[in-house]
């Protein structure tokens, strides 16, 4: 085994020892946390408030990480492109909520439904609710998979998307079962705290519970992916017909991968309900959730668990930061609007003028040919970085002007939507230039 690996490594091109992609990823996540803390500090939050906020970020990011792990098992390992992530997520969330909430009878005043209530209300403990959620979502995934897995990748995507949309419509309208568009409120947290610190303690507990569940899922998935079972899944992804020809019943393997992935999504749903304390079908389970999870897995790198988790923290971090900036920092930003515009434009103009001067100098004296901007640009990475930064700063200044011109009252909203546009740009760039994601799947070499 060892000799085999060393022989193969001779043939592979030498790779750098420093894990640049990992460093970049973790510094970006660090930056996200830092900006979050800063914008909360600008708005004048207490340290405990900031920590509660950060805890919320981490626990929702963990929910998305579990979703991404489920999708990674389906797509990254087996090659099944599921577009109904939101559907399985919804099933898990609602089943867990039915199980663990206290009874909620409908309130009807004079024939008018004031509060629709919902099914269940069994007040079961949280772990039971989570297991039930996993079972329900996994079973649904298996039922959906039996017809859907016979389809080609893009048909599978459309069929599962349709399934998720039907489920969302049904959830919104079956008022007596799901609470309709009002949703389910009062989902109990893992531990009920009392007093002024309740919110802070609750956030910390949720982070702990989420981290435990994430760790357990990673361990189980790692074991499964490294087992012969996981090897068959990867073989199906690479060449299904060849795997069939080796005597494997590929349909059964695909079904199992799809169902286990669905069960993980259900688990994520259960955790989501507990984290938020309420469920509403309108936005939490929209198709955009599915797209977010795709982005997470593609950005992080499909086919490895680290990639899925890192992608979740990164992409949800972008979302969280945009909300933080919108809600907290924009207030401070708007006050200093003119100043910031002036600073950015001024710096940018100065930098551009400097570049122009260098250019003119390079033209005047033949001995200074190296001072030509293009020559400088090619000369060193540092100069290249400085020049690009100058242009970027100038561009930011212009962005301020454009936003002021077109949407003066909606600076915060623009930041919020620009984040989604940025995700779109990231998706396209990655799929074109680096389809394996930031953290690529380890090359497995067999002899």
């Amino acid at each position, binding site marked *: 085994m060892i000799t085999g690996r060393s022989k193969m490594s001779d043939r592979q091109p030498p790779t750098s020892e420093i894990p640049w992609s990992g460093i970049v990823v973790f510094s970006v996540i660090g930056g996200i946390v830092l900006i979050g803390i800063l914008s909360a500090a600008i708005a004048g939050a207490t340290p405990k408030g900031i920590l509660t906020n950060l805890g919320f970020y981490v626990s929702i990011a963990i929910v998305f990480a579990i979703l991404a792990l489920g999708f990674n098992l389906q797509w990254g390992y087996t090659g099944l492109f599921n577009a109904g992530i939101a559907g399985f997520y919804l099933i898990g969330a609602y089943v867990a909520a039915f199980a663990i909430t206290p009874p909620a009878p409908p309130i009807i005043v004079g024939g008018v439904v004031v509060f629709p209530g919902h099914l269940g209300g069994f007040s079961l403990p949280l772990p039971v609710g989570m297991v039930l959620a996993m079972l329900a979502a996994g079973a649904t995934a298996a039922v959906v998979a039996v017809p859907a897995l016979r389809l080609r990748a893009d048909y599978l995507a459309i069929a599962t998307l*349709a399934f998720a949309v039907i489920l969302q419509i049904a959830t919104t309208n079956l008022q007596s079962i799901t609470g309709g568009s009002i949703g389910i409120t009062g989902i109990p947290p893992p531990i009920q705290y009392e007093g002024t610190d309740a919110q802070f303690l609750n956030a910390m507990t949720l982070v702990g519970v989420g981290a435990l569940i994430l760790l357990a899922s990673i361990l189980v998935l790692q074991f499964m992916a490294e087992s012969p079972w996981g090897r068959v899944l990867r073989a199906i992804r690479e060449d299904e017909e060849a795997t069939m020809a080796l005597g494997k019943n590929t349909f059964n393997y695909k079904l199992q991968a799809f169902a286990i992935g669905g069960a993980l999504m259900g688990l994520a749903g259960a955790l989501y309900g507990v984290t938020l304390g309420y469920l509403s079908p309108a936005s939490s389970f929209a198709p955009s959730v599915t797209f977010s999870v795709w982005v997470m897995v593609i950005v992080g790198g499909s086919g490895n668990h680290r990639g899925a988790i890192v992608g979740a923290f990164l992409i949800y971090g972008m979302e969280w930061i945009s909300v933080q900036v919108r809600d907290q920092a924009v207030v401070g930003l708007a006050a200093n609007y003119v100043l910031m515009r002036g600073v950015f434009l001024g710096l940018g103009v100065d930098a551009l003028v400097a570049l122009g001067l260098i250019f003119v100098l390079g033209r005047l004296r033949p001995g200074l040919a190296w001072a030509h901007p293009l020559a400088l640009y090619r000369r060193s990475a540092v100069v290249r970085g400085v020049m690009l930064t100058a242009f970027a700063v100038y561009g930011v200044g212009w962005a301020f002007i454009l936003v002021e011109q077109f949407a003066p009252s909606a600076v915060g909203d623009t930041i919020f939507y620009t984040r989604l546009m940025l*995700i779109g740009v990231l998706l396209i760039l990655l*799929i074109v230039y680096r389809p394996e994601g930031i953290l690529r799947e380890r090359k497995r070499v067999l002899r």
Partner: protein
Amino acid sequence: MVAVIVIAVLAGLAFVFGTIILKYALGGMVISSIVIVAAIGLTILYGIRGFANFAYGDTMTLGAYIALVLTLNGVSLIWGAIASFLALAAFGIVLELAIFSRLEGRGPVAPLVASVGIGLIIQNGIRSVAGTQKWLYPVPAVQDIPIAPGLGIHPVRGILTLGVGLLLVVSSHILLKYTNLGKAMRATADNLELAKATGIDTKRVTFAAWALSSSFASTAGVLLGLGSALSPTMGFEILLLVFAAVIVGGIGSPYGAMLGGLLVGLSQEMSVPLLVWLERPDVIGLQFGSAYKVAVPFVILILVLIFRPWGIAGRRPAFARRAFFIERITRSLGEQVAARSKGATSKEAIKP
């Protein structure tokens, strides 16, 4: 033929249920004509480029908003729609040049993901520029034209939409059937390699498909905005309906898309009386039954995907998949056996 059957069925329905059913049928026809225009564009691109364009709904929104911006600046809606038609044709070609030509030969999922990215950019770009509020086209206030007691049709929302839909269906039929470009498109959609081998410039065909598809999206978007109001998510909300029409009709077949669009639109609107009947407490007591009309086309879509994945009008593939696998596996096993039996002699023959 089809028209005669449709009219006969409608007359029969009206005889049994009264003219109220014709109201739903008419609504269904209007929705259908929008879906058909969109589905023709989507299916042409699907057939030639081989991937599901998830940005198609947002392309429709973009077309509608381009026309809106022009009408707000004093251009009449018809010229606005024509300008948006041309602008989106160029937009489609730019998309192919900038992004999708780089993803050729990477399977159906990579371009699908890229198209989701484009959809996100368009949708949120519109949100941040035009805001999330609803916009209306400046349509003159006119009364419905009565056809029968209790049944009327709006001159703009009804007749104009139906007319434009019919015009685009007929013109796409002429394009596909009688022009060289259309024939080349059908050939490329049928078999890319064979089309290349016969000397068709498939690059040009791809660009034409993008232009046609995006410009049809623009018109569908304008019609959609005409029917109700413009919102940043209006295209994405109807996208699954268009997909349903495309798949029900058979991917890559424009005539199938017409049939599929008709089926999807009519089933959505005409299921309303059924759903209202289900709302009655003595039947099931379904709450908000008519909200489920949106789900009816998806149920049809899923049924078609399970039982006839090649579509109701499409051709069944020459080999059923399973038979194909079995043949392939037996062949490869046979080759292995043959190689093993010949193994000893051939090895010696190769060795010097």
